[in-house]
């Protein structure tokens, strides 16, 4: 007690021995003030530039000007025109480069229609061996090089002809499916290009959607190794600045052939951490972002400073069965597991309504979607138990799931898997979770599920029916392709092979829909949810269009400020 009292007295004494304490406190105050002051000054000076926060403005007329700041969930990869990479990258590159034809990125329709961008017309021969593209006239690349048939031919050959002086080997993997059967490209006239296949390739026109062109002059000037730093396309925005990990700055192309965009600039800042994107939106550091934690959207919806837009696209999150090994080689067991999962509750409680229930591998927004197809195996745990009993698993069984806790397109990942684990436990299926880092997991995915792994988890975001075969044909089982669950149905194979030969596009889509349906009825996977890709934006962002795609652009956007 006496010691403590003397300590207090020591603290209160203002004598020479207390210099060190006073100096310490002074130093803390000085250093702390010096550290915070610049920030206060900087923020105060930039307050005038902060977006308004009092609610939507009345102004409706678009006006030119302004800089839109986008918080991206991943770093931007090389800005190649011919190798888009991820959707995240596509959100940047589509501003700079334009395709001949595309799934309309400026359409808000439930399925993006195919439209011409650099091509005004396109046609295919009856035998699907020749396709012709009529190019828009008067278009120039951003460096002044004319867009013509020679330039398009040069670009295509760069992607498939190994003898091309600028053969882009690194893009070949991404172009493999598109150019697998190509024979040659011909210049018919200055604005007409003709492409010849070695054999009929009915899907070629569909696969040409999104194929973009780069200025040959720029590639010759910078070479394959450096062209990504000087990406020259025909698009409404040009690259002004690229600082890796910090920002990508696009500036309006004043010589754009089409309607000039309203925005002066669009700036992309990579912000890998979703909580940071939330903070940046709220503090006004950015104007637009995606892939935020599901439980934050309700808050943004209530906040008058923000608008939340959701739209389903060709994405599905699913649990994949090992259809080769017991117990899931028995269709009854797969159906039972499907019926054990309460998808509505998962979407409501885990995803907070930011997804739509999935019932098949290709859902709304895709070529293979059948709106008349009803859920084949709705939630019914009692029926699930009956099926398990019928299959000889009255007491349930144990199994293993390999899964990535997070990854591209994996939504709430681990939380969703844990929810499903609990659902399955209620019908007697005890699941042991084995989380794996993304790349380790992908390697195992390609190797195919071993017998001891009953289920796994994946998502895909493919909107084209051309990919039904890629994921479910027997010939895509490992090591050939991404069918790691060893799914095989001769009837599905037959339909997909027939689709590959069907020249009539509508009949082909009909075949894809049939295959989609059969795969769902086979319970090849548990289709859980389609991501609505919620987007949060400041209310000053006007005329944003949400396409039925994972990619989107800010071309028609203007800022009401």
């Amino acid at each position, binding site marked *: 007690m006496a010691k403590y009292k003397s*300590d*207090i007295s*020591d*603290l209160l004494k203002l004598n020479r*021995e207390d210099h*060190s*304490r006073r100096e*310490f406190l002074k130093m*803390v105050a000085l*250093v702390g003030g010096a550290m*915070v002051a*610049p*920030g206060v*000054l*900087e*923020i105060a000076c*930039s307050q005038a*530039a902060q977006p308004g926060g009092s609610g939507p403005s009345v102004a409706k007329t678009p006006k030119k000007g302004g*800089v839109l*700041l986008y918080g991206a969930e991943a*770093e931007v990869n090389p800005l190649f025109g011919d190798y888009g990479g*991820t959707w995240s990258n596509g959100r940047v590159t589509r501003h700079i480069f334009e395709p001949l034809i595309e799934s309309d990125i400026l359409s808000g329709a439930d399925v993006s229609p195919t439209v011409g961008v650099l091509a005004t017309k396109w046609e295919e021969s009856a035998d699907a061996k020749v396709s012709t593209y009529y190019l828009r006239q008067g278009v120039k690349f951003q460096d002044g090089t004319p867009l013509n048939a020679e330039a398009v031919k040069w670009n295509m050959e760069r992607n498939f002809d190994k003898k091309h002086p600028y053969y882009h080997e*690194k893009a070949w*993997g*991404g172009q*493999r*499916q598109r150019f697998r059967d190509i024979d040659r490209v011909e210049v018919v006239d200055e604005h007409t290009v003709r492409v010849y296949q070695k054999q009929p390739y009915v899907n070629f026109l569909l696969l040409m959607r999104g194929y973009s062109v780069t200025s040959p002059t720029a590639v010759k000037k910078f070479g394959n*190794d450096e062209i*990504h*730093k000087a990406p020259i396309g025909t698009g409404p925005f040009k690259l002004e600045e690229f*600082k*890796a*990990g910090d*920002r990508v700055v696009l500036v309006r192309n004043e010589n754009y052939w089409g309607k000039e965009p309203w925005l002066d600039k669009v700036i992309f*800042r990579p*912000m*890998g*951490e979703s*909580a*940071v994107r939330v*903070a*940046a939106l709220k*503090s006004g*550091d950015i104007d637009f972002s995606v892939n935020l934690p599901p439980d934050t959207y309700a808050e943004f919806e209530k906040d008058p400073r923000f608008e939340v837009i959701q739209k389903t696209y060709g994405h599905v999150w699913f649990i994949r069965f090992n259809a080769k090994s017991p117990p899931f080689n028995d269709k009854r067991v797969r159906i039972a597991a499907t019926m054990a999962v309460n998808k509505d509750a998962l979407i409501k409680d885990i995803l907070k309504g930011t997804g739509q229930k999935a019932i098949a591998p290709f859902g709304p927004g895709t070529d293979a979607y059948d709106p008349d197809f009803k859920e084949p195996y709705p939630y019914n745990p009692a029926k699930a138990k009956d099926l398990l009993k019928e299959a000889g698993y009255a007491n349930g069984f144990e199994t293993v799931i390999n899964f990535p806790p997070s990854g*591209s397109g994996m939504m709430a990942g681990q939380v969703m898997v844990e929810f499903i684990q609990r659902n399955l436990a209620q019908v007697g299926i005890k699941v042991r979770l084995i989380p794996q880092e*993304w*790349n*380790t*997991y*992908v*390697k*195992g*995915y390609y190797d195919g599920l071993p017998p001891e792994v009953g289920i796994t988890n994946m998502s*895909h975001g493919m909107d084209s029916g051309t*990919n039904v075969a*890629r994921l479910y044909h027997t010939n895509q089982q490992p*090591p*050939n*392709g*991404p069918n790691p669950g060893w799914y095989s149905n001769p009837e599905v194979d037959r339909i997909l092979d027939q689709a590959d030969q069907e020249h009539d596009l509508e009949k082909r889509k009909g075949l894809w829909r049939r295959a989609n349906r059969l795969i769902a009825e086979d319970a090849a996977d548990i289709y859980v949810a389609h991501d609505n890709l919620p987007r949060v934006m400041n209310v000053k962002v006007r005329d944003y269009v949400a396409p039925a795609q994972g990619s989107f652009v800010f071309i028609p956007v203007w800022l009401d400020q």
Partner: protein
Amino acid sequence: MTAYIIKRLLAAVPVLLGVSVVVFVILHLVPGDMAYALAGPQATKDELDAVRQAWGLDKPLYIQYFNWLFKAVQGDLGRSAFHSDPVFQMLMDRFPNTLFLALASIIVSSIFGIFAGVISATKQYSLWDRLVMLLALFGNSMPSFWLGLVLIFIFSLWLQILPSSGMTNLRGTGGPLDLLSHFILPAITLSAFSTAIVAQLVRATMLEVLRQDYIRTARAKGLIDRVVVYRHALRNALLPVVTVIGLQLGNLLGGAIIVETIFSWPGLGQMMYRAISTRDIPVVMGGVLLTASIFVFVNLVIDVSYAFLDPRIKYSNR
């Protein structure tokens, strides 16, 4: 001394070589290669093979390593699979950002840590001592990602006086004030752990030194407390502290991965995290080489600084 430094630098070469071999082997032992990361989980075998061929991943491992080594000794660290940029350029672009943050954190943690440790030691068992040690415990225990997010919440969201991410204001024109305001929160987050360590270590070493006979003698001779503590005691107490600070600097220069990710600070740590996640082998190899070199250099500087701090220490050529 010069001979000692040269000897140490030459000894670094086999160290760096060994590090490069170990890291290369580990990168290839870990499941999943660059081709899967580049092609994505829905690629066919054809597409994967095309990617492997484009990047030379179809060659035997020892050929891949020696190709890398042959170019590395000529200063060419290859190109990033994901950014297509030369690795050397990427490292030089990011390293100054990490150096800035690391140096600032070391300065902050050294100043605050040393002063806090001295106060704590000279006021042992007092309220100040207990408060400082409690804060040190807090600094030691708090995960940096938690501290970072809390600081963002308080200063960026609630008080709105500091920015939440990045190095510069995207709406502004940049400048030193802008940079300073952006680095405050990451620097505090990064320095919390180091400050705690330094404070605890300085307290411990000071307590030992303050009990020495020569300190009693100095006081008996009438020297004021400030002179006794800072000129006579602290200098002797600093030797182990210099080692710790140096090692912390080495750690930080290697990349403050968590802090750079939380604050979207475009530094080495963030780059290395992404490179490891995506198996971007050229970047990982280049980054590891740089980090190992930094460690070697920092250790050398620490060893040499001992001779200046303590004149009794001399280095021989043996």
